[in-house]
């Protein structure tokens, strides 16, 4: 018992001294564990320049850039052009997307240095026998930081923006007569890349407005060339829908161009839409027409139709050239006066734009978007 007591004091002093030493060592020098907690990192890391060298249109057959982030939340909104979406969580399910040639250069990336997804996928690919794997560890944030780079977006994202009438400009960079006129993405304007400088004034004055360029798919360079031209002009929010019109047709289910003239029932006055037909279309398929409310902003603030976009008649002339031609346009206002004026303005300024109508009626719109229509006096 006494021996135990005699040993207790020195043991306590030693223990305290050991603890102090240990704590000091921890403070002065990072714990070995923390410094080497990089076991999850893949061993072959590349930088943004390396990736940039391999982004080609079309992509080389022996290179694949793979986005390991979640598709809907990240990839759809913006990814490295030409990258394939293969979220790590679905790697096994999507492994069939990987090339048959196991010597293909695979470059995985995700959301930056703290993101483990690209490293995990790289290891999975290695386990499948791929021999030339790299990880772009700084990932998408570093891609976007580099001057002159831009993001690509998916067809799903483009459709979502159109469906919610997002404030952006979609530019079809393909030849107008041969391609655009035969079918294009709704709301897209035509600025063929070969005539970019000639039509540059049709781009928005606001350099921060999102611009989305597209052309004929992954082998088409036109949208990429136009995007670079827009960046050089100072546009800050430039995107490319690289899979372009072929992908759009798949996601939209139909070609954008519709036989609209066969769908609209004309009213008694030249250019007018039949009132009963207008009511029916608003009840059953309002998105089948491009509805433009030409009243002033203060009037629209008190209520407008849910699918309508507001272009006050005084601002219309400048925007006529960019009106979409893929579905019927119907102008509305309170009495038919300004909508009628709008109709004739289009006839005068852009006579080639067919399927344009106006509602020749007294229209009352309530705050909740419900409305009533009366025949004109």
């Amino acid at each position: 018992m006494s021996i135990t007591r005699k040993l207790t004091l020195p043991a306590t002093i030693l223990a305290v001294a050991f603890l102090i030493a240990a704590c000091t060592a921890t403070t002065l020098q990072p714990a070995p564990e923390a410094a080497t907690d990089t076991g999850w990192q893949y061993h072959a890391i590349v930088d943004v320049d390396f990736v940039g060298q391999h982004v080609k249109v079309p992509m080389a057959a022996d290179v694949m850039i793979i986005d390991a982030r979640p598709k809907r939340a990240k990839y759809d909104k913006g990814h490295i052009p030409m990258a394939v979406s293969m979220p790590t969580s679905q790697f096994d399910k999507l492994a069939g997307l990987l090339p048959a040639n196991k010597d293909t250069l695979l470059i995985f990336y995700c959301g930056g240095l703290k993101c483990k997804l690209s490293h995990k996928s790289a290891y999975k690919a290695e386990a499948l026998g791929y021999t030339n794997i790299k990880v772009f560890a700084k990932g998408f944030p570093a891609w976007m930081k580099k001057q002159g780079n831009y993001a690509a977006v998916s067809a799903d994202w483009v459709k979502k923006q159109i469906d919610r009438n997002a404030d952006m400009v979609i530019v079809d960079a393909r030849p107008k007569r041969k391609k655009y006129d035969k079918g294009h993405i709704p709301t897209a304007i035509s600025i063929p890349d070969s005539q970019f400088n000639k039509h540059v004034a049709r781009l928005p004055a606001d350099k921060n407005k999102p611009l989305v360029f597209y052309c004929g798919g992954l082998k088409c360079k036109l949208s990429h060339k136009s995007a670079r031209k827009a960046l050089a002009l100072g546009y800050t929010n430039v995107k490319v829908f690289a899979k372009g019109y072929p992908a759009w047709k798949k996601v939209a289910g139909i070609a954008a161009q519709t036989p609209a003239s066969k769908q609209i029932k004309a009213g008694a006055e030249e250019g007018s839409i039949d009132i009963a037909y207008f009511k029916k279309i608003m009840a059953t398929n309002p998105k089948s027409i491009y509805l433009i409310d030409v009243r002033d902003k203060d009037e629209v603030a008190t209520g407008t139709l849910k699918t309508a976009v507001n272009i006050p008649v005084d601002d219309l002339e400048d925007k006529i050239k960019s009106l979409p031609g893929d579905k019927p346009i119907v102008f509305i206002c309170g009495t038919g006066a300004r909508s009628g004026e709008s109709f004739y303005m289009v006839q005068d300024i852009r006579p080639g734009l067919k399927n344009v109508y106006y509602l020749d009626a007294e229209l009352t719109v309530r705050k909740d978007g419900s409305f009533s229509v009366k025949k004109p006096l």
Partner: protein
Amino acid sequence: MLGKTMLGLFTLALAVVFVDAAMAIERGNNRKGKYVYRKVYKACFERGAVASKTPPVSPDTKTQAEWTTLFDNRDFGQFGCPEEWEKLSDKDISDIYTYLHDHASDSPTPAKCK
């Protein structure tokens, strides 16, 4: 003699009616008239002849009868912008007339040019 006089008077009356009918302005397209009317002053403004793109004479500044008289007489001086008015076709003028007439001060829907 009386018969000849009566025939002469009848012929004269008929001629007056026909001449009057020929002079009377025809109705055109109200909606198109609004656009053409505003376009006149836009062009006039762009060549620097007026200070505003807004037409100086609103439909509700006259009655329907006054508009009819003005257009029957082709008395367009008060509109200003003679260069632009001279270029208008008869159809354009009919359209403008219809717009102004249909929104005159005594019409069901008097209108001002904004």
